[in-house]
């Protein structure tokens, strides 16, 4: 069953463009400031919002998102505050897809039932929880099952190492399982280790090959899920690379969140995001 995520990506494809996923940071000072960031992102052309729910041990994140986690924590922002904010976004923007981005630590700390309840109340469309061990534990915590029942997509992330795995290997078996279970879109990582804001990136050829292989397997397994590129996307060259690769969307976060942390104004960030948005057209 599709939701706002697929509808938005399909609309972008129909318009001859790749969809732009933008990461929403939590402003440590106030949720009103955070909402101003959201307003600016949407007016600048961001298609899908991914809200960064800070992790207190942000071990899968790069330095920019670590700082984006640390600042609200030190300021005393709670997870309840963040969920209230997400609800406010939904009320203000009923059509825009919202994805909650966090680590499974946050889900466990809050309690999975409560996390899912609050996410349902905020009518979010999906989750980017890169360290939920769906296959390793055979969905032991039933997070994936719960997502399916709620029609909220758990976004899976495929590393380059998995994409290039040899047929028959453990990695290949895992890749096939991921392709089978994918909903909404899958992330193909543009950096080893899946760290945000990474400086180590795949070459153009590597990324094109990776997207091609995932597409072929999707087709073979009868899954029409979309493909998004994540990690280390910031420059016009990166976006060109995404388009050449044949991916349907991409995510940017660290690039402009760092500018915000460095004190750039929302107008300056908006100029950057508008530039990115313009480059989304084929």
């Amino acid at each position, binding site marked *: 069953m599709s939701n706002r995520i697929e509808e938005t990506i399909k609309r972008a494809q129909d318009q001859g463009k790749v969809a732009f996923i933008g990461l929403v940071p939590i402003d440590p000072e106030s949720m009103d400031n955070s909402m101003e960031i959201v307003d600016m992102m949407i007016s600048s052309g961001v298609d899908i919002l991914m809200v960064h729910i800070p992790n207190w*041990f942000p*071990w899968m994140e790069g330095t920019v998102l670590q700082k984006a986690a640390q600042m609200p924590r030190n300021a005393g922002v709670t997870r309840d505050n963040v969920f209230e904010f997400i609800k406010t976004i939904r009320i203000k923007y009923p059509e825009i897809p919202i994805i909650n981005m966090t680590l499974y*630590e946050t889900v466990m700390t809050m309690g999975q039932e409560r996390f899912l309840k609050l996410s349902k109340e905020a009518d979010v469309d999906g989750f980017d929880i890169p360290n939920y*061990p769906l296959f*390793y534990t055979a969905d032991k915590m039933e997070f994936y099952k719960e997502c399916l029942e709620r029609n909220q997509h758990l976004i899976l992330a495929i590393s380059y*190492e998995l994409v290039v795995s040899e047929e028959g290997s453990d990695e290949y078996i*895992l890749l096939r399982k991921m392709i089978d279970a994918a909903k909404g879109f899958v992330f193909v990582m543009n950096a080893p280790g899946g*760290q945000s804001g990474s400086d180590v990136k795949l070459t153009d050829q590597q990324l094109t090959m990776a997207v091609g292989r995932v597409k072929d397997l999707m087709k073979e397994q009868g899954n029409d899920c979309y493909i998004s590129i994540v990690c280390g996307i910031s420059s016009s060259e990166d976006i060109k690379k995404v388009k050449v690769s044949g991916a349907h969307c991409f995510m940017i976060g660290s690039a402009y969140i760092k500018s915000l942390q460095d004190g750039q104004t929302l107008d300056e960030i908006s100029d950057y995001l508008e530039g990115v948005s313009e480059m989304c057209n084929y």
Partner: protein
Amino acid sequence: MIKNNDTLWYGQYGGCFIADAFSLDCDKYYDEYKKIVRQDGFEKEFEQLKAEYSPVEFKLLETEDENLMVGIASENLYSIIGTILLAKHMKKEKVVCGTRYTDEAMLCAKLCKKYGLKLKMFMSKDISSISSLMVQMKTYGVETETCMCEELFNLPEMYAFQTWVAAPQEYVLINCRNNVGAFPHPNIVSDFASVYGEDLKLAMESMGMPSPERIVVPSVSGTFALGVFGAFDSKTIEFVTVECDEEDDLQEELDSYCGTFTKVMRNRYNDRVLAPELSNMFDNGEVLRKLGNISQIDTNHSDLLCSQTDFSVQSLAGLNYCEKNTDKKLTLCLVRNTRWGAVL
């Protein structure tokens, strides 16, 4: 040497909360670890190294209370020795570690130098400002990384784990404690650290010490306590840990430190993470957990504070507990010297 036998969960704690794409690397790492540790010669080499670099030192301190034995023990650094030896046998060229204490940093540097391993060390801000230590690290050819802990989270182990996850084929991760990292890292630390407990027990037996009814271990993450408790009989001995924090507003939460769920004591700025195995033992009643903070330590014990022993604050809290709980015929309080580096 392998004690945990693939334990992924300790009750509700533990696990391997790491992306599926990387979990295969964890499994492969554990398989290789088991294979190497079981090889002829590994244990012998391990024995030689620990005797040379970090032998168990234990002595009894004099007390006026006949029902209390106070023993001072050296730190348990066996996991550093074990994992560096593992790196050598895996034929890796690079190792990464996160250190909070000067003794950890020095041992890592020395052993890596001995085996020609390229060491990248994330250092907590508590020790990175010690210039003599930094000079030593340079002398040993260590690539030190201090900015992350200085500018972001003061969690050197987290950055070391992050480095390992990004390139598991390239690096071996040296973990000093079993409260960090996804399976199998806590298990590997636990295996090596448990050898310490056995050595300590042997040292006690060789001194003709009577068996206590209670063992009190001052604790931070619990790695030392677990190593000790594992060597003694829980049916006849009551195990107690005493934690003592600098701050009094730490709240307990369930969280995962790089992939292993456990109890975390935290406020807005700091975290203290407990070993998952120990968290489970608390819940099961196998170990009594006593919490305190520095302000509760009775500093009237000037005899202790001014003695030749540099008691850690946790050790002072442990002694306080023993002095106030005299219901057992014979209690062993296992104190340690303060370590230069982090308080938590």
